[in-house]
Each structure stands twice: as C-alpha cells, then as structure tokens.
C-alpha cells in the first residue's frame, strides 16, 4: 500500500523533470524575487540598524531562506483538484482503492522534493555567494529547520486541499484560489515578516495558520527565535497540522455525498 503512494511521489518527480521550461522559469522567478526584495529591503532600512528586531544581515537571510522554503512547500494542488472535480475525473479516482487526498498530497511532495533538490539547494548556494547571507553554524538548527519546513509543506498542502475541495460546493472556485494565494504570500511572512505588522495584527495572526508556513521556520533559521521559543514554534506547527485535518475530513465526507459532475 505504502509503495503505491511512494510511486506517486516518484512519478510526479519524473514529470517535473520532463517539463524543463517550468524548471528554468522557476529559477528565474526565484532569482528575481530574492534580488528585488533584497534591494527593496536595503532601501527600506536606509541608514537604520535594526527594524522590527531584524538586523540587515538577518533580514537578508530571512528573505533568501523564506523564498527557498517557499520553493519546497509551494504547489498547485488546489488548482489540480478543482480541475479534476470540474471535469469529473475525480469520480474515477474515487473508485480506486487508495485515498484521493493522500495521492494528491504525495504528488505535491514529489513536486516539493524536486524543487528542494534541484532548485532550493543550488539556489541557496548561489544566493550565499551573491548576497550577504549568514547561515547558521549550529547543525541542530539546520535539522530543526528541515523538520519545520516539512510542517510548512504539510500545512500549506492542507490549505490547498481545502481550497481545492471547495470546488465540490461552489461551481467555480477560481476567485477563492486566487485569494488564498495572495493571503498566504502576505500573511505567511514571505514578503513581510510578522514582526513588522502592528501589534494588534500580530495578535490576530497568532490565531491563524499562515505564520506557521514561513515566518516560524525562517525566524528559527535566522536565529530570531532561539532556545525554548524554537520548540514552541515547532509545537505551533504540529498543532496546526493536527487541527487542519478535521475540516478536510469533514469536507471530504460531505463532498462524497454531493459530488455532481458538470458535463463530462
């Protein structure tokens, strides 16, 4: 059974390899994003030493590592699922003796592993040469970081599954998917660390799953969070992962009852 799921990871990995243009355009995107945000933050800092508790060096590292982590956890599962729901092929998949949601998750993982090995690792090396990035020297921090971006992947994928499954309940969830993408980029901390938000916004964000996706792992990596806070951050991620399972299962159960294929 497990080997069937492993195959889904492998197949997606190979599919990604086949689409070279995607790979090259991915490299260009991440290079431009990191570069542009680096210069923007340099201008924002101006002559200031620290802003929002981040030094310039920490901020540079934060931007680089956040984008690189995004390469790993990012996927388009929401779009894939809603396409399959709309063209009806989800019905065939449901008859198979494997869990549809798990298959999707594994495909997302195949994509993530592909980008981790072929984009994130070489990208990180290039970035350290180009920009004043300071990597942590403590091996424990590296290990924790990789555990944390694993949770980032899980949580982000869960949100994608939920957004995709909405296609069962509304005829067209295009707007919802766009909204989710924008929300995650803003509120997860990729373009703006949570520490920059005003106090009330930070308090509100603590009750949402988004900061667990980027802000927490990147803060640990840059050393903004240390000691007991690191374990706290990890616990927050684990709790969000557990909590988000509930709505997905509920949606999935409701969806199976009301599946209705448009056209076909």
């Amino acid at each position, binding site marked *: 059974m497990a080997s069937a799921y492993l195959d889904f990871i492998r197949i997606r990995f190979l599919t990604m390899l086949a*689409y*070279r243009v*995607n790979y090259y355009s991915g490299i260009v*995107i991440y290079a431009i994003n990191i570069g542009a945000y680096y210069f923007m933050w*340099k201008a924002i800092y101006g002559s200031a030493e620290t802003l929002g508790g981040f030094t310039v060096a920490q901020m540079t590292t934060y931007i680089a590592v956040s984008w690189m982590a995004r390469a790993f956890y990012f996927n388009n599962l929401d779009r894939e699922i809603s396409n399959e729901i709309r063209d009806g092929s989800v019905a065939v998949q449901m008859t198979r003796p494997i869990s549809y949601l798990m298959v999707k998750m594994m495909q997302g993982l195949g994509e993530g592993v592909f980008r981790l090995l072929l984009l994130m690792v070489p990208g990180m090396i290039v970035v350290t040469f180009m920009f004043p990035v300071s990597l942590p020297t403590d091996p424990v921090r590296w290990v924790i970081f990789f555990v944390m971006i694993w949770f980032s992947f899980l949580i982000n994928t869960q949100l994608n599954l939920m957004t995709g499954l909405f296609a069962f309940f509304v005829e067209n969830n295009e707007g919802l998917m766009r909204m989710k993408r924008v929300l995650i980029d803003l509120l997860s901390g990729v373009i*703006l660390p949570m520490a920059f938000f005003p106090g009330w916004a930070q308090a509100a964000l603590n009750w949402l799953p988004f900061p667990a996706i980027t802000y927490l792992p990147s803060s640990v990596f840059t050393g903004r969070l240390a000691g007991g806070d690191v374990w706290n951050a990890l616990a927050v991620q684990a709790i969000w992962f557990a909590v988000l399972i509930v709505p997905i299962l509920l949606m999935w159960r409701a969806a199976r009852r009301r599946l209705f294929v448009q056209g076909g």
Partner: protein
Amino acid sequence: MQQMIFNLSLFREYIANYMKTKLTYRADFWVEVFSDLMFSATNLIFIFVVFQHTPALGDWSEAEVVFVYGYFMIPYGIFSTFTNLWNFSERYIAKGEMDRILTRPAGSLTQVMLENVDPPSLIGSLIGLCIMGASWSQLGLAFHWYDPLVLIVMTLGSVLVYMGLYTALATISFYTDAPTGIAPLMYNIQNYGRYPIQIYNKGIRFLLTWLLPFAFVGVYPASFFLERHRDLVMAWLTPVMGVIFWAIGLWIWRRGVKRYRGAGS
C-alpha cells in the same frame, strides 16, 4: 476599418455572453471582484506597514509610493480585463481548444482575448484612480488642464506594454507542452515596476526598463505627475515602449500560431 467594426460587434456579443454566464454564477462574480481587490490591498498593506518603520524608500515618501501604486492599478485593471491569458496553455493548448479558434474567420488573438474577457477587473482601475486622486491632493500637486489627457496616453502606453509582454509569454506555450510554466512567471515578475526604480541595482533596473519593461507600468509614467521626481524622457517613452512591445507581442504570436499542431484528442 471594416475589421475594426467586425471586432467591435464580436466584442458586444462576447460581453453579452459573459453577462449571461456570470448571472448563473452570481456568487463567484463577487468573490472574483473581492479577490482582485485583495490582491491590490495586499500590496498596499505592504507599503503601509513598511512605511511605519521608515520615513522614505530611497528618497520617495509614502504618499509618492502610494501614488505610483494607484497609477499602476489603472492600466493593470484594463489589461486584466482584456488580456486574461492566465490559463491559456491549459485551456487552448493542452485541451486543444485552439482548433476551434483557428477554424473561425476572426483573428485568433482577438478571439482568445474576447473569450476570456473579465470586466470585474475594471473595478480595480476605478479604485486606482481614487487612490491616485487622494495622494494627488495629499501631495498638494498642481493640476494642469492637460493632466487628464496625459494620463490617458500614459495609461494606453502602459496597457500596451503589458499586453505585448503577456501575449509574448503566452505564446511560449506553443513551443512547449508545460501546462503550468508561464502563469507563475507572469504572476511574479509584474510586481516590481511599481516601486521606485532607483532603489534597485543596475541589473534589475536594466531588466525592468528594457527587457521586461514593467517600470513603464508604474514608476516612469507616474513620475510625469510627481514634480519632485519628474523624468520627462522616461515618462514620454511609455507610449513608445507600449507600441514597440505590442508589435513584438503580436509578431511573436503570429509566428507561434503557425507552430500549433493540435492536441490530438
């Protein structure tokens, strides 16, 4: 001329059809409007939050950066209305819908653009205009009789820059089967022309000015109205760049269409 009238009549038909489908999915319409606005709100939030920590970006004040953003929203809204090519490669290449397009007498690009027309995006343009107006008075800029005319010319130039670039990028899908290759590229790079170009290093500035000239959809044309940052040469290059890039986009599209072989299904 006759072609033009024919296309306009097509446009009317497509809009009528659009209305009918949207009336069936009414809730989606509002979700879509809302999500478009969220996208702009996100970027404005970024600007507002950042300026809580710094008085200036380069030597641009908050109101000036917001002004540029407001300007950007106007051409961006018009562009998204008519060039909604985000799922071009999925829908027309992978699923082979291009077959249907090519058997008809109207221009292929015209049809693709009209089939995906997305009027709710225009609401973004209106809000952009309001934002621009608000920062205009906040900055105490003088108002000349020719300013609205210049704004129209600049907007047209910016829209053409965008349309040309995105048509060219969509054409890539004639050459590769990658179903998702271009959309994220489009989504990401467009972000950077709306911030003061002076903050970037030479490489990115060159990229945003001459290669992927997104700076002509933001900071250059908007600088015409900002007395402190006025750069007349770059501002007036906007319509010129618009025509050049639109021509390039069209030319690439025509070449790409010839390569289309159908999806075989």
